[in-house]
């Protein structure tokens, strides 16, 4: 009698336990599924909406023959557009004397004519209008001469050789729109402060749309102004071109909106044992927020100062520009 009631009790207890377990598992499964979809989306939104273009690995490069390498080096023709205003004149001078000498061609597009320097006058103060006109000018004049178009502000320092290295194996007939990509709500855009790279195909598509105000308006924001880099992203999106974040083979950004000094200061605060390792890519293309003096220091630091006895066998060869004494 006792035994029976005992086992009866046990049976009801174990069945409660089992019921609990089952219910717990079902709850868990539901939550995991939901969470995963949510997290999956979240990750996608923050990391994978920008299709990350990675720089080529050494293994890929070694597959290229010697002859191909020479051909390749010459096959990258980069046209640099620098948008300037009269207030930028000291940065303009620095940029003119430093990194732009390494573009295949560099031209300065200014809001108005400036006595001291040659520039192409855009006759407008509005950055977005300047940008549109500059892209149109460059495309109309140079579409057959250059296959990559790099736009920058004069506060940016760029290493064009590293840009070309990154573009290795990238087909300019594809619509590329690269740089330091940011997500703003629904829109992925390349931040102008890190420099904007467009392939010739993207230039083609953009220029087609420039004459269609519904697709690519001159007056982006209705209530307040939208920055020119976002406006560009909207137009390009309408032309079927998506922004992509450029990274090296380790996932580090190569287009930077900050200066080396700022990165170092942050690393000293956040990663004091790995300051240089945690700082920036060895193959960085741009840094931003430099003073004119810092541009000259970067020129020396990048193109001249080095450690003896460290040799690199690179897949491309770039010669120093003619008539230049600081590189």
């Amino acid at each position: 009698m006792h035994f029976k009631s005992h086992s009866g009790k046990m049976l009801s207890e174990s069945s409660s336990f089992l019921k609990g377990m089952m219910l717990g598992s079902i709850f868990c499964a539901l939550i995991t599924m939901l969470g995963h979809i949510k997290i999956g989306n979240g990750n996608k939104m923050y990391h994978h909406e920008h299709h990350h273009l990675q720089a080529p690995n050494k293994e890929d490069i070694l597959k290229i023959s010697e002859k191909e390498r020479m051909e390749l080096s010459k096959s990258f023709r980069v046209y640099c557009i620098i948008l300037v205003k009269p207030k930028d004149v000291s940065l303009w001078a620095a940029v003119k004397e430093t990194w732009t000498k390494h573009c295949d061609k560099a031209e300065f597009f200014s809001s108005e004519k400036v006595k001291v320097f040659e520039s192409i006058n855009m006759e407008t103060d509005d950055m977005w209008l300047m940008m549109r006109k500059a892209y149109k000018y460059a495309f109309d004049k140079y579409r057959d001469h250059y296959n990559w178009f790099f736009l920058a502000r004069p506060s940016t320092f760029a290493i064009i050789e590293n840009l070309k290295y990154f573009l290795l194996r990238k087909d300019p007939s594809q619509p590329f729109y690269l740089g330091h990509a940011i997500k703003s709500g629904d829109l992925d855009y390349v931040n102008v402060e890190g420099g904007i790279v467009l392939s010739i195909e993207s230039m083609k598509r953009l220029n087609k749309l420039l004459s269609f105000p519904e697709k690519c308006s001159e007056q982006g924001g209705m209530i307040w102004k939208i920055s020119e880099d976002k406006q560009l992203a909207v137009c390009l999106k309408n032309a079927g071109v998506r922004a992509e974040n450029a990274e090296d083979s380790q996932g580090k950004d190569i287009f930077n909106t900050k200066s080396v000094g700022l990165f170092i200061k942050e690393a000293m605060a956040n990663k004091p044992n790995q300051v240089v390792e945690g700082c920036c890519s060895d193959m960085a293309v741009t840094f931003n927020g430099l003073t004119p003096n810092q541009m000259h220091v970067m020129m020396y630091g990048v193109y001249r100062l080095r450690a003896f006895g460290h040799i690199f066998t690179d897949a491309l060869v770039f010669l120093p520009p003619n008539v230049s004494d600081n590189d």
Partner: protein
Amino acid sequence: MSEIHFWEMASKSWLNFLIFLCGLAVGFVLCSQLFSILLGEQDDTQPKILHNDPHDGHSDDNGEYHLKGQMDFNADASQHKDENTDIADNLYEKVKILCWVMTGPQNLEKKAKHVKATWAKRCNKVLFMSSEEDKAFPAVGLETREGRDQLYWKTIKAFQYVHDHYLEDADWFMKADDDTYVILDNLRWLLSKHSPEEPIYFGRRFKPYVKQGYMSGGAGYVLSKEALKRFVDAFKTEKCTHSSSIEDLALGRCMETINVEAGDSRDTIGKETFHPFVPEHHLIKGFLPKTFWYWNYNYYPPVEGPGCCSDLAVSFHYVDPTTMYELEYLVYHLRPYGYLYRYQPALPENIRKEISQAYKNEDPK
């Protein structure tokens, strides 16, 4: 009777309920574990923090731990996979440099720490010299006071200490401040053309007060083994004394007295390698006013602008901690891919012979 029965039933239900809850919890936990195994954790998309730096191949000790041409593949290997350091590694063995860094108790954490984190590890041996010993850092205690007027005392004692403990461990003996940034690879290139048996020392040469000139203290200077021996000896025989507290000038006077030559440290096209200021001060025309003492001190014609500084610069001074790391990044990390540098100095003759010999001896693969 029914009341007791009721409570009995109630407690039984309570118990059942509790057991049910336990089952719920257990089921949940087990299931979530199962899922996490099945789905695998999302990889951290952050670039891995690098534990080993290929440039950290040299331990603080007697270069015993130097990885000859070997790379630590846990390090940021892909950036440096195209890098061949055979020549640098060869020079590391051929031109042994002991560095001592002038610092003090107040500056160990503020300044010396960043020297330790950057260029110091490329010395064959490095010592931090302070007025008091610090076993943890570690720093050698010279038993002096601190202060600008103690600099020459500290220098004399530091060189004596190095002479007494490490004479045979190096060929060249470099003094630097805790705000000097030194590029050891370039120093080795410079010194490889000389013998440690020569009585000679190198640095940024200044012309006043001493006939053969003397070397700027802050830009750092390096003594040959013979020069070190003569210097230490001179204090024993009182050929030199603590004649003044101006460290670099007093040392320069002593060097002249003991017939140690003030060497020309400029590169093969006449550009200076040791710098008493940061790159910006030298590279920007007009940064240093024309009335500044510097223009009258330089032994060789001083140059501002791009001609100021060799591509193979050895040192910069007044380098704050941020700039230490910036220079480290610019010299050893950031580079223009595929760029053919204008200045292509030759390898020292003896090194070139050795390397070609080494290649000849290698079995064809």
